[in-house]
């Protein structure tokens, strides 16, 4: 599904050079639920961003469904992200100016889908995360757990093959965190969605099919 080959990511600032990812080779299989763990600053987010085509590696290849992503023109990269990938971030990243329903519809705006169809799918997605009673709310009127559920609804509305989640439960208490985890596990089991999740929580990672550990930019397990 996703293959990373010899991935290196270097951040250069005027004073220092950080090797955030060092020779990563990894492949994520279809239908797999993979978790990534490691100490803060070890490169987990960087790895996820490279996988999700949000960031370009300094070296190495990212292949999605066997297709090389580096060097693709902006238009095709966008379509890739739009059709194949769904993101869930630790800090939700909802558009605060738009109500919940519009936030969830967002990925479909960039497809050829009618307004009414979009609406229908958004309501369905919100139902899946148990938030269909909050459609007209603005993100600022929701709790953290609710916001993350909106973010998940947004990530799944386009039925992407892969969901990339960067510490989706990082800002939530354990009850809320477990609810979110249940939703993700359901998606993986029932819909066959491939999921890659960064987490700090051993208990969460235990529920996943496979664990990848990072240390200082290198894969240690």
């Amino acid at each position, binding site marked *: 599904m996703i293959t990373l080959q010899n991935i290196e990511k270097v951040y250069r600032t005027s004073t220092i050079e950080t090797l955030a990812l060092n020779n990563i080779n990894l492949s994520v299989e279809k239908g797999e639920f993979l978790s990534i763990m490691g100490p803060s600053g070890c490169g987990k987010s960087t790895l996820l*961003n490279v996988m*999700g085509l*949000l*960031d370009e590696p300094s070296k190495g290849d990212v292949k999605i469904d066997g297709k090389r992503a580096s060097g693709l023109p*902006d*238009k095709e*990269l*966008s*379509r890739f*992200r*739009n*059709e194949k990938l*769904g*993101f869930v*971030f630790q800090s939700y*990243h*909802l*558009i*605060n*100016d*738009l*109500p919940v329903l*519009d936030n969830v519809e*967002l*990925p479909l*705006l*960039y*497809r050829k889908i009618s*307004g009414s169809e979009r609406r229908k799918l958004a309501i369905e997605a919100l139902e899946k995360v148990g938030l269909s009673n909050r459609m007209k709310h*603005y993100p600022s009127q929701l709790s953290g757990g609710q916001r993350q559920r909106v973010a998940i609804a*947004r990530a799944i509305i*386009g039925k992407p093959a892969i969901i990339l989640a960067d510490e989706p439960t990082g800002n939530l208490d354990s009850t809320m965190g477990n609810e979110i985890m249940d939703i993700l596990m359901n998606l993986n089991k029932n819909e066959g969605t491939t999921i890659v999740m960064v987490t700090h929580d051993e208990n969460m990672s235990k529920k996943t099919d496979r664990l990848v550990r990072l240390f200082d930019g290198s894969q240690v397990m």
Partner: protein
Amino acid sequence: MLKNYFKITIAVLKRRKFFTFISLFGISMTLTILVVVTAFLDHLFSAGYPEINREKSLYSMTLEQIDSKNQGQQSGPMSFSFVNKYIKSLKLPAKISLTSMVSTANMYRDNKKIRVFFKYTDAEFWEIHQFDFLEGKPYTTRDIDNNEFMVVINEDLRNKYFGNGVSCIGKTIDLDNQKFKIVGVVKGVPITRPHTSADIYLPYNTTKEDLKDPSYRGSFAAIVLAKEKNDLPKIRAEFAEIARKIPIVSQGGFNPDKINIRLDDYVESFLINLFRREDNSTFLYSLLVLIALIFMSLPAINLININTSRILERASEIGIRKAFGASSKVLVGQFVVENIFLTLIGGVIAIVFSLLIIFYINTSQIIPNSDLAINWKVLGVATIASLVFGLLSGVYPAWRMSKMHIVDALKA
């Protein structure tokens, strides 16, 4: 997609009331200045009361005599006999009128001083221009031949001198120790139309200038009316031929070797007055265009500035949209539409502001008798300017934003 852009725009504008207010304020102020300036330029340069024949008219305002050996130069209006001999002899025009430069004098009424502007004209002056006569009529060639001391005055002077709306036909006024009989009252002309603006119009026979004086310089200028606009080049050519044959004469120790005199269209004559440059009109036109461009680029830069900060402030939204599949092109589209929409709203507000300002200019006496208006031309300029500015000021920030890396945008 467009419908969505609008929806997003309205949602964003509504949610960020303060920011929207600031942006709209900046945009509408900028466009207001633009609309008022356009209205003013339109007022200056488009045919307006009473000079409705401007498009078909040519003007000869100055005669230039050059002594290239001693680098001497004299330029100014012409004598009555010069205009009569060399300009009135044109065959092609429909009508040729001669008027003096405007002069000032003081009049007294009930011990109150009234400062007046007056000019001498011929009878053709009243035929070339379309004055509104509130009462009476203009003086005629017959009146001039009979050496009648008649005048036409404007409404302002009548109201000041005789009282508001009091009929004054047949009454007399004193000007420069001479008595004149009033034969007509016209609606006032704004001072921005110097060819026709005056408080008192007198027939040239009443001037103290010696009309038979053969020397070239005096206080007169000429306005030539063509039968149709297409005739203008032919008339210019005819005149150039005449001008070539004007004998060069020395006078009072000044020995010119060259004479410059031309027929200009309205804008040329206006600009020559303004800048005192007389060589070629392309230079003048390019100067005008350049000034207009510089003037318009200021608000454009201002708008780009407003919009750049408005858009870059939404970096995280940009990052989110990109992460979920918006291409740079689509985002540029969204922000450009948003900008044009905002600028158009600003344009509507600007027109309301402009109407207020123009109403103020017209009713207060900042420019006496001014008749600035927002007509279709001004409205068209305002609309096009709004669209162009909306586009220009949207494309640059949108382009900058589309260059932004997703990860950086998300962190912002």
